[in-house]
């Protein structure tokens, strides 16, 4: 859901740009506390993986495709602050290197996918794991839900931005975006859960300080 140039009005582009810049700067500050010799390489690898995975559009309905976002995946592995930095990095690279997402819409895209896409789902993930009994099924469900919610939340904010810009009426664009991204969200949930289980199956020897779950918070 990379917004191209021209879809957002100047006030929306500017305000989302300012909001994103501020929140991103704060995230970077928080992220720096979590970065060490183990997490920095993982951050690099996650950036590479998110970029690559976002190139792989899959069909979701006739004539429509979706692609993996990755915000939930990285949030679960490295926490939301680092994930915000990773997704933002990928979005900036995509805009500058490949004109994927308008440069004038970068603020909105970062807000939707790197900020909303990381923090709201992570809050959900954290809450589910705190509130519900700790077992594999709940853990798997929480990961799927995190992936699903990340895409839906981003789509909602994107719709609001388009509506406030006057590009599309909210009553038309919001249901369409949520409906389409519910399908994409299912894909996101499944891919996130699969990818996390692959990483966690190796995790055993790694040391829990890198991949910390709220229910085992030290």
């Amino acid at each position, binding site marked *: 859901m990379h917004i191209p140039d*021209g879809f957002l009005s100047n006030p929306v582009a500017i305000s989302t740009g300012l909001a994103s810049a501020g929140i991103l700067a704060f995230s970077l500050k928080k992220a720096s506390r979590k970065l060490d010799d183990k997490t920095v*390489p993982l951050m690099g690898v996650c950036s590479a993986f998110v*970029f690559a995975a976002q190139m792989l559009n899959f069909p979701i309905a006739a004539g429509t495709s979706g692609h993996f976002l990755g915000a939930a995946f990285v949030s679960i592995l490295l926490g939301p602050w680092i994930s915000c930095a990773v997704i933002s990095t990928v979005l900036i690279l995509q805009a500058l290197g*490949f004109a994927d997402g308008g440069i004038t819409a970068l603020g909105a895209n970062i807000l939707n996918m790197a900020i909303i896409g990381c923090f709201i789902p992570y809050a959900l993930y954290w809450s589910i794991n705190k509130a519900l009994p700790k077992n594999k099924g709940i853990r798997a469900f929480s990961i799927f839900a995190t992936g699903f919610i990340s895409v839906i939340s981003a789509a909602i904010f994107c719709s609001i931005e388009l509506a406030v810009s006057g590009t599309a009426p909210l009553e038309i664009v919001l249901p369409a975006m949520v409906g389409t991204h519910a399908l994409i969200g299912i894909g996101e949930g499944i891919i996130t859960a699969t990818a996390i289980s692959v990483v966690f199956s*190796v995790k055993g020897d*790694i040391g829990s300080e890198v991949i910390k779950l709220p229910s085992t918070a030290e």
Partner: protein
Amino acid sequence: MNIKWKWLLIGGVLVSLFLAIVVSPYADENPDGLERIAEDKGFAEAASEEPVWANAPMPDYAHPSFGGSSGTKLAGLFGTLAALLAGLFIGTLLKGKKKTT
């Protein structure tokens, strides 16, 4: 840093490169959710003809000198490596900052 961890990282990079170079040409070509909705609901024309940022080396993950899937593969290769380096660079910068606070 133990062996398993190193292999996880290397594996991650290799998987990423594999996806971006080998698998990407097979990605679905249909417009994504937002583009599709823009077309169906009639606001696709609001998008600028040309991107405001005119200096993208490989707009749309393609390059004029490389036709078809070679362009996509090249975009995948460069983009994935650039993302890896950018992530490492920013991570290293931020990690360094931590020590001074």
